[in-house]
């Protein structure tokens, strides 16, 4: 029997606010100088301390909700999720339960190479992060710097049928969060975490079988590997006549296996109830509208616009819109360049991205205007393509003015036909045996002759003209 997976994702995203969700402490736990410095009675759960909701976090949560096509609830409420763990100082987490801030959205993703899929977003709700535990041999250390950092939990419906779709969904959510400026997307710092709910069923069936939940997936790679492993594990169980138990799993990245953490019998009863320390959030239509007006152009819309306005292919446009900073950089370079957007795009996708990745640099490292100059100089044959690459590398390394660099390094392209003709003639005259082989049918030698000419001019000779003249010379020498 053939099986298909049914996948739903929960994404926990820290919201980029200055202060924590319910107190005034800095939310920047990643840059804290040492453990337990950004803490106060509220986020350390001292007796008598009370929460006060962070307005900015509510705004950011609503912004994400709107970006995911959710409806924003005019009345949402906080609730207590009660359980004991040393990283949870109050013995309950303040979250949202019956009344999340956002519900019923959707996001279009690539189901596979050909098909698009509308994944429904069930809800997005605000909650507070827990403290960070470091387990030592006989004890554990607790760092409350992270305790109370605002989180948005985005829950999808189990609409994905392939790991590719789940990956694309996660990737798109991350891009949207970064576009909105609400999350750095820095997965190594744990600001974005995934949980995958997975079940499998016979293809063409519409039943929903028992699912398992894989917690704390901290990278796209972990998401993909854990999901694939879990799908195969469940299929094997069914194929051998067994049944899958509903349970919570962890992912052991080193061993590449999922591990049971909690069975259904041990499932917590969180005893949710409305948080009496916080009044409900009443959001007016005007307020929601004002948040909607803050929505920037999102990756999908930008991709469509780039394709339409700049005649780019879908993959070209998607690459450029994968990061807002890159998309903005592209548009700025296009404004400065005389060359076509497609040419600018090709430069960014190739040489520019290579430099970014190699140097782990940001686009702003080289002014967009300078990149535009390089692209135009190459297009105008002022310099050759390889000289263009040299100039770009120079800009990344030392900065400066492209024209000045061309002058200083003597990179200007030679387009003087007489001069190139002389060089080509000399090379042909010096290599009669190669000419013979060429005439005998080994036409690949053409490129070798062109290469010799390029070497003789240190790459400055116009390559098109050089090739043309070489071909002409070779034909003239046919007997």
């Amino acid at each position: 029997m053939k099986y298909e997976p049914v996948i739903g994702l929960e994404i926990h995203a820290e919201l980029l606010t200055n202060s924590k969700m319910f107190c005034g402490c800095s939310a920047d736990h990643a840059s804290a100088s040492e453990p337990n410095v950004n803490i106060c009675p509220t986020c350390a759960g001292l007796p008598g301390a009370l929460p006060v909701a962070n307005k900015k976090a509510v705004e950011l949560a609503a912004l994400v909700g709107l970006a995911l096509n959710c409806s924003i609830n005019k009345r949402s409420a906080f609730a207590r999720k009660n359980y004991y763990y040393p990283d949870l100082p109050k013995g309950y987490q303040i979250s949202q339960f019956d009344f999340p801030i956002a519900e019923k959205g959707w996001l279009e993703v690539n189901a596979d190479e050909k098909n698009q899929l509308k994944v429904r977003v069930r809800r997005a709700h605000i909650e507070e992060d827990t403290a960070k535990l470091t387990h030592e041999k006989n004890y554990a250390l607790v760092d409350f710097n992270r305790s109370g950092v605002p989180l948005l939990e985005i829950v999808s419906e189990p609409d994905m049928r392939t790991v590719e779709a789940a990956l694309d969904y996660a990737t798109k959510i991350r891009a949207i969060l970064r576009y909105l400026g609400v999350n750095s997307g820095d997965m190594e710092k744990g600001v974005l975490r995934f949980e995958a709910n997975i079940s499998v069923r016979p293809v063409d069936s519409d039943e929903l079988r028992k699912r398992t939940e894989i917690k704390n997936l901290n990278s796209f790679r972990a998401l993909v590997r854990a999901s694939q492993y879990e799908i195969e594990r469940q299929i094997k169980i069914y194929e051998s006549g067994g049944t899958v138990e509903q349970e919570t799993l962890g992912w052991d990245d080193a061993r590449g296996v999922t591990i049971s953490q909690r069975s259904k019998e041990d499932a917590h009863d969180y005893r949710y109830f409305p948080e009496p320390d916080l009044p409900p959030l009443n959001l007016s239509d005007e307020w929601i509208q004002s948040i909607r007006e803050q929505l920037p152009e999102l990756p999908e819309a930008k991709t469509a616009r780039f394709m339409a306005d700049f005649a780019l292919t879908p993959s070209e446009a998607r690459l450029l819109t994968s990061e807002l900073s890159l998309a903005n950089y592209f548009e700025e370079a296009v404004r400065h360049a005389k060359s076509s957007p497609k040419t600018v795009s090709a430069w960014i996708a190739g040489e520019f991205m290579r430099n970014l990745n190699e140097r782990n640099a940001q686009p702003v490292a080289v002014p967009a205007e300078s990149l535009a100059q390089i692209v135009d100089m190459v297009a105008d044959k002022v310099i050759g393509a390889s000289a263009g690459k040299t100039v770009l590398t120079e800009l990344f390394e030392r900065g400066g003015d492209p024209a000045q660099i061309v002058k200083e390094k003597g990179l200007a392209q030679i387009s003087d036909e007489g001069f190139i003709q002389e060089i080509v003639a000399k090379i042909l005259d010096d290599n009669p045996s190669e000419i013979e082989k060429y005439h005998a049918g080994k036409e690949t030698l053409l490129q070798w002759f062109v290469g010799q000419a390029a070497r003789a001019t240190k790459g400055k000779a116009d390559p098109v003209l050089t090739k043309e003249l070489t071909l002409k010379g070779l034909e003239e020498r046919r007997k």
Partner: protein
Amino acid sequence: MELTNLTVREAHELLKIKKISSVELTQATLNRIRDTDSKIKSYITVTDELALQQARRADERLAKGENITPLTGVPYSLKDSLSTRSVRTTCASKILEDYVPQYNATVVDKLNDAGAVLLGKTNMDEFGMGSSCENSAFFNTHNPWNLNHVAGGSSGGAAAAVAAGMGAFSIGEDTGGSVRMPAAFCGVTGLKPTYGRVSRYGVISLASSFDCVGPLARNAYDCALVLEAIAGHDSHDSTTYQEKVPQYAANLNKSIEKMRIGIPKEYFVAGMDAGVESALQEAIRQLEKLGAEIREVSLPHTQYGLPVYYLLQVAEASSNLARFDGMRFGMSVSKNAQDSLDIYLQTRRDGFGDEVKRRIMLGAYALSAGYYDAYYLKAQKTRTLLRRDFETAFASCDILLAPTSPMPAFKLGEKINDPLAMYLSDVCTVSTNPAGVPALTVPCGFSNNLPVGMQLIGKHLDEQTLFQVAHAYQQETDWHERLPSL
């Protein structure tokens, strides 16, 4: 002149004209505590040195004539559920026996700013769970009018301290009657303000949606002065009102003529103590003489007050008390612990008293999956009915008048082994907390030589009318001036 029997207002007048100093007044009160509290047991912690230090600072303020408030230099006590920086705060629980907070409750900061002088922290039922102060993990507080009787609870230490001259006023906390009931039992005036009128920040929570911090003092005028100092919006407490705090005390001399006072018939229950009933009837006649219009009203859902209160209160408490886990502060029993669960279980087993454990279990049960709708949700709906009862009643009257308790202080040990009987003693006070309305108790007579309290219940944020009626009454009566012989 007996310094320890001065009202806040009298003390302020004498301090202002420098007839007495705050150090003198504070020292006299500390002496009184030293000499008397071994019998009453109202204080858990006495902060002698801090008190004298604060008194000296108050005297400097008074000498300079700058920044003087009606509380500057006036000694007071705090219920031990209010956090005090560097002063042990126990909530009368073993689990917090050695807990020293790092921060002050907002109310404490406000009283410090006003220049009041803290004498110490008063006894209570553990975490506010009780009606007699017998659930303190440390000792019982005795009623100053009869040492064999309870002081009431949970703010029993606060009420007994004021009654016995051990502080001009006290700050208590009322979740279901915890200020009013002991105030009535001990013959002092006590206010449960409107929910959200006074900040709860730093007050160790019993039930977050009920807890109200309020003053106990020798008369309504003093309560008005104290409320002015402690009320107001707090950026640390989202449940506080933004509304400006009125100048209550300055507006007390208005006549109560034509004041419509409703008598809710449901509060005059069968089995009510005869002495309490006659004291109440006499008080009603007195108010009528002052021109008030008395009318009977109905609060039809009163019978559900107790169950609603005891269900929601335990539910919230079960969650509020989860933070006492032996991990960060307070008692931690980790001996032979294999994991964190062992620490939780051992710490909470040894740290909490029986009543606390009982309520945590009841509360956790009421919130569990499968029971939530039948208990918690139903109670919340009924809470709305209780609130509406008051709204309806206030459509036809300005305040309500009822007994604070259907009987005077009972004997120590009389109810401690019968939790239900203990819960029933809150019957006249519990309904106001779910409704959030303010209520003031005023001494109005005696039954078997024990004080009787009259409860005045007001509209949301209308403490002013309560003070006005109580003040008018206290101008004509002297019940509040009677002193126990100790």
